[in-house]
């Protein structure tokens, strides 16, 4: 396709109308690009919120004023609650040092060894009895502490589930978001192409109109060509506008014919290809 074909539909339209069409198109593109930029900011923020929710980011991202920010704010708040509950649970576990299920079995074992009759060679010594007696009531207190925090474990589990659901919702929204981004991209692409075409045409049209010499200079040229003389002022004015060179260039077409440029002839003979190197050694 030649350039003339590309602009064929524009030739019959006025330059002003084309200029206006071009400006409108640029505004639309800018608007869409702005929307696209906002979408990218939102996308990044969503990604950061998800990373924060799954512990891959240590601090919560700042939620900007974007679309569907409620969901993101909800996720951040839920993560903070979850972290708080986790730290309470960890604090309890650190304080106890032994998980609850092991405490119950140890309590049973101690009670049995302290109270059940066994062969004298297997029965605990007084020192062991004292140790087990002391531990028995400590374990009782530990189990009571665990029982007092049993609600905490449920709360941790609930908070975890809730956060997971919110993250899933954000992911679902993200898929919609990706579709919107793709739509924005496909909407902008033809507009950019059209704007480029209009700009190219307008630039081409603006170059086509050369600056005409002032009438006075035209007159001087004609007079000089006719062999008349010029005053010093007229001669100075002529020099400032391009001088005698301009005059020669105007005369030259008739006297010296332009040489035709030689077109470089390109060989289109088949060329031998490069030898392929074998992958096997």
């Amino acid at each position: 396709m030649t350039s003339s074909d590309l602009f064929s539909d524009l030739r019959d339209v006025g330059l002003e109308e084309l200029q206006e069409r071009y400006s409108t198109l640029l505004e639309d593109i800018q608007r869409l690009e702005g929307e696209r930029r906002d979408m990218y900011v939102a996308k990044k923020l969503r990604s950061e919120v998800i990373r924060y929710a799954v512990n891959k980011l240590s601090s919560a991202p700042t939620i900007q004023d974007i679309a569907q920010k409620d969901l993101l704010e909800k996720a951040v708040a839920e993560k903070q609650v979850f972290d708080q509950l986790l730290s309470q649970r960890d604090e309890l576990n650190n304080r106890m040092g032994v998980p609850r299920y092991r405490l119950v079995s140890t309590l049973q074992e101690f009670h049995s060894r302290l109270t059940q009759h066994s062969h004298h060679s297997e029965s605990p010594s007084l020192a062991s009895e004292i140790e087990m007696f002391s531990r028995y009531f400590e374990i009782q207190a530990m189990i009571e502490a665990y029982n007092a925090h049993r609600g905490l474990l449920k709360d941790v589990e609930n908070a975890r589930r809730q956060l997971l659901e919110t993250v899933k919702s954000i992911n679902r929204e993200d898929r919609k978001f990706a579709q919107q981004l793709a739509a924005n991209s496909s909407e902008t692409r033809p507009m950019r192409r059209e704007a480029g075409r209009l700009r190219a045409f307008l630039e081409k049209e603006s170059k086509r109109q050369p600056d005409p010499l002032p009438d006075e200079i035209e007159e001087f040229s004609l007079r000089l060509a006719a062999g008349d003389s010029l005053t010093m002022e007229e001669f100075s004015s002529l020099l400032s506008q391009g001088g005698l060179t301009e005059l020669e260039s105007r005369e030259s077409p008739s006297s010296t014919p332009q040489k035709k440029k030689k077109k470089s002839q390109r060989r289109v003979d088949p060329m031998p290809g490069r030898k392929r190197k074998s992958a096997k050694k």
Partner: protein
Amino acid sequence: MEAKDLMSVTPEALAEAILRRRKQAANHLPDELTKRIEENDRAYAVFNEAKQRIEAIEASDSSDDDREKARLEFEEKEAFRRRTVSRLWVVKHAIKDNEEAIEFWSAMADENWGHLLENAERVKAGGASSYTRIGEKVSEVKE
């Protein structure tokens, strides 16, 4: 015993249960001691016999086979003697430990448990368990 029942056991009840078991053991330990003394006496008797035999064989011109048999028999009796001595000491130690335990647990209830409930009280007050404290000490030593 169910976990719920284990949680309701009091120090008094547990000490009483320990004392009950200890007193039960105190009833049959003397019989056990008698048995072990008899066993030890028997072991000494057979050990002495084997010892005299091997001394006699070594003094005579007995064959190597006879000497070997006598040596093996002596070693067997010697091992038996050592086992009975060990078993006798275990019973004697159990009797002594039992007497001390009965004395200790009888006195402890009256002395309000002394330091025995310190760990439990600390955990109840929101402190760390002895398991955690031991773990922390081990970490400090490693560092």
